[in-house]
Structures are given as C-alpha cells and as structure tokens.
C-alpha cells in the first residue's frame, strides 16, 4: 500500500511546472466541472429519493406482508374451544411464526372508530380474532384452510393477500424506479464526463503536439492532463454533492408530521452514500482523460 499511497500523493500534489503546461480553463474545462457538479447534484437527489422510497417499500412490505387474521365465528359456548383448537393448528403450521388471540380490549380498540368506546364486546356475538404472524418463508394458505375446515369449522382465514399484494408491488416499483434513476443518472454522468474530458482534450491537441515535439514523454504529457481533469471532476462532483446534500437537508421541513412517507433524505449511515459520488466522478474522469490522452498521443509520431 505504501508505495501506492506515495504515488497517489504525488499525483495529487502534482508538478507545478508540468501543471502550467496545460492551459487554464476554457469552455470545455468549465463544461467538465459543471457537468460533474450538476450530475453529482442530481445523483444525490436520486439517491435520496431511492433510499426514501426504499425505506417506504420496506415498511409497507414489513407491515403488510407478514400479518394475517383468523376469524372464529362460533356460538358463544364453542368459541373458547375453537379458539384453542385453532391456535393449536397454527402452532403446528410450518411458516407461522406466532399466533395470538386478540384480547377483548384489543378487539374493542379495533372497533372503536365505528362503534365508539362503549361497545359491550363481551356480551355481543362478536367473532374472536386471532393475529397470525408469518416467518420469512410464509405458510401455505390453501393447506392451512383445509386443516382448519376439518378441525375448527367456525374459522375463516383472511390472509390479506388480496389487498397486500398491490401495496407490496407498488413499494417494489417505487424502489425499482429509484434505483433505475440512479443507474440512469450515473451512466449519463459517466458518459458526459467522458465526452467533456475528451472534448477538452481535443481542444488542447496543439499543446499535446508541441509537448511531444520538444521531447516530452507520453506519460508526462498524459499525466499533466489527467491530473488536471481528474481534479476538476473531483472538485465539480464534490461541489455538486455538497449542494445536493444541503438541498436534501433543507427540503423536508415537515418531516415530523409526514411520518407516513419516511422523509426524503438520508438516515444514519446512509449519509455515507452521497460521499461516494465525488471519488466515483473523479475515477470516471481519470479513466476517460487517460484513455483520450493516450489515443491522442498514439496519433502523433
């Protein structure tokens, strides 16, 4: 590692004299910086969006996908027995993590929006509800129904599939969209930095030719350009990233209230993600400029 580090330090420090050989900024140079900055900004945004939708999708999936309800509608005197029987069946069903009969208070809470707090749950012929939590593999609903119909005639399984599937799909769609945008913006960024670096290099064809004619080695010439453009891309991308992060920080002011859509932004270690952008942009610029410089040089004798 140590020698590599020395090389990187030397690369970043540069050779003051060699550095002057590359002309200062023109349009193409500014273009490189701007492209790097703008695309970094957009990437931060897309990243925030992706992570936020990812979190949303996770929550939806978690909350919806793994709970279902078993309803025991039986005459009052058989309810207890059937509930126990159902719980026994559920305990032995593969894929069921836990099953639990709701208490009267919980049932009353569920019904409160409709009937108010004074509903005499105990004296009413209200069915007993059992909450079923799946494990990761999930259970076979059809098989469970079959077993229940034999042992607990009054049980009705409502596995939520009907209304949970679209939600989970929507969540997955959102997540996919987020990552797709990132991939798109990333690809566009790489392509644009590449083209901008090549355009800037093409604009400096005379500099390269002159240097080659007075006896500069290829590595020396390439280095002078590569360093310049890598630093430009790094600087641009860093500026764009910082601006993007600030924008993301400022934006979701109503975070607390809008708890449903987990706020746009980064949470915890996710803040590390955007910090990856500048080095990535610099790496793209490095590769692109190097490639372009070497091609330009190969055309010269």
């Amino acid at each position, binding site marked *: 590692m140590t020698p590599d580090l020395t090389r990187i330090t030397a690369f970043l420090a540069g050779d003051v004299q060699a550095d002057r050989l590359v002309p200062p900024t023109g349009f193409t140079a500014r273009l490189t910086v701007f492209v790097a900055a703008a695309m970094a900004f957009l990437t931060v945004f897309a990243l925030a969006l992706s992570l936020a939708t990812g979190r949303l999708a996770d929550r939806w999936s978690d909350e919806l996908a793994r709970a279902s309800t078993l309803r025991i509608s039986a005459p009052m005197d058989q309810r207890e027995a059937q509930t126990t029987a159902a719980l026994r069946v559920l305990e032995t069903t593969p894929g069921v993590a836990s099953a639990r009969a709701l208490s009267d208070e919980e049932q009353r809470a569920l019904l409160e929006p409709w009937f108010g707090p004074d509903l005499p749950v105990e004296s009413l012929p209200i069915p007993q509800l059992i909450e079923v939590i799946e494990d990761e593999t999930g259970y076979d609903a059809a098989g469970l129904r079959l077993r229940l119909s034999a042992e607990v005639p009054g049980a009705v399984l409502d596995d939520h599939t009907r209304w949970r599937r679209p939600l989970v799909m929507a969540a997955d769609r959102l997540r996919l969209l987020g990552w797709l945008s990132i991939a798109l913006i990333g690809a566009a960024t790489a392509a644009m930095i590449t083209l901008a670096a090549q355009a800037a290099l093409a604009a400096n064809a005379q500099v390269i*030719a*002159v240097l080659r*004619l*007075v*006896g500069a080695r290829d*590595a020396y010439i390439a280095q002078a350009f590569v360093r310049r453009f890598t630093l430009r891309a790094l600087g641009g991308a860093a500026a764009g990233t910082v601006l993007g992060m600030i924008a993301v920080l400022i934006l979701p002011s109503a975070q607390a209230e809008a708890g449903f859509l987990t706020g746009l932004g980064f949470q915890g270690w996710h803040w590390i993600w955007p910090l990856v952008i500048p080095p990535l942009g610099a790496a793209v610029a490095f590769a692109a400029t190097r490639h372009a410089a070497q091609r330009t040089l190969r055309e010269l004798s």
Partner: protein
Amino acid sequence: MSYGGGELLSDISLTLSPGSFHFLTGPSGAGKTTFLKLCYGALLPTAGHVRMFGADVRDMSRDDVALARRRIGVVHQDVQFLDHLPVADNVALPLIVSGRDRTDESENLSELLNWVGLSKRAGALPAELSGGERQRAALARAVIMSPEVILADEPTGNIDWEMSQRLLQLLVELNRMGKTIMIATHDMNLIRAAKSQVQARVLRISQRRLHTAGADL
C-alpha cells in the same frame, strides 16, 4: 517515402556525420520538410530505413523517440507554441519537459533570447509576436537544450537579412562546438554567406532524388 499516392523521395542514402553542416534546398513541395521529418522521427519511411543515433526508428519505442528528440533541436516550418505561456517559457519548454531545473539555465536563457533579439518580447504571448519573431523564438527553443543535432526548416523565411546573418552566425558557432546542423532553405544568399564561414555541403532535392550540389553557388 510516399504519402499514400506516388513516391516522393526514393533512393536516398545519407549519413549525417557529427559536426557536419548541411543545407537542404529544392523547389517548393519537393520534400524538404518531409525529409527533415524523417530525420527526427515524425514520419516513418514507407520503405527503407532511418537510423537515429544508430538505432532504427522502427525499433524505437515512443519513449526512445522522445528521448532522442531531446538530443535533436528542430525549428519547424509551421512553428507552434503553447499559446498560453509567454515566449520565455516557450523557449524553455524543452528544459521543463525533460525535468531539468530551469533556474540553473536562466542565464543561458536570457543570453539566448538576447542573441535572437527577443529580450524585450520575453514576456509576450506567442500570438503577439510578429512572423519573424516567431521564427527566432523557434530557433531559440531548438538550441536551448544544447542538442547534438539541429534541424532547421526555413528558419529565415520571415526574417530580414541582418537578422538572418545573426542567426546564421549562431548556428555556425554551434557547429564549431561540434553540433551537427542541417538547414532547409531556399535562400541562396544565406547559403553563400554560410559557405564563406564554414565548410557546408549543399543537398538538393529534385526529381525525387537527393543530389549534392556542386560548389557552383
């Protein structure tokens, strides 16, 4: 040597011995520049062999060519500079790219600029130079490394007679120090002036051949 189409130069065999002084003449478009480009490895011959300092250019790596160029000073016919650097830096460019310390040579540099009459214009950008000033700067750049061989392509095309004489004298002096000199020119007066000072051979390109011109100039 040929550029895709017909042959331009053929059946040429020449060795520049160290310390020799050559003129290269011939009508416009005869191939003088092409010949010089072969000599400093800017072109590869389509047939035959070119040797630089004993090595065949075809066998030389790109870095070998770069290193060889530090031992050859070239004044190009279409002079190109780094347009964003002042004249002094452009003249010192070979020192910079070969990693030499410019400060060691700064006296050398100012003396040279003085000789070619550019002391006052040292801080100007290349675009602000007159045609003749560009050529003089190019000559200064060619000799700053004190190269073993100096190839000059029409170095006095845009320069008045007095200044031409002055530049010729610089080259003659370098030749006396053992440098090999080759000048492509169509200025017969310059050749005549040189002949009175050094033993110069005149080569003439015509009908795709290299002829040695007699002493009849």
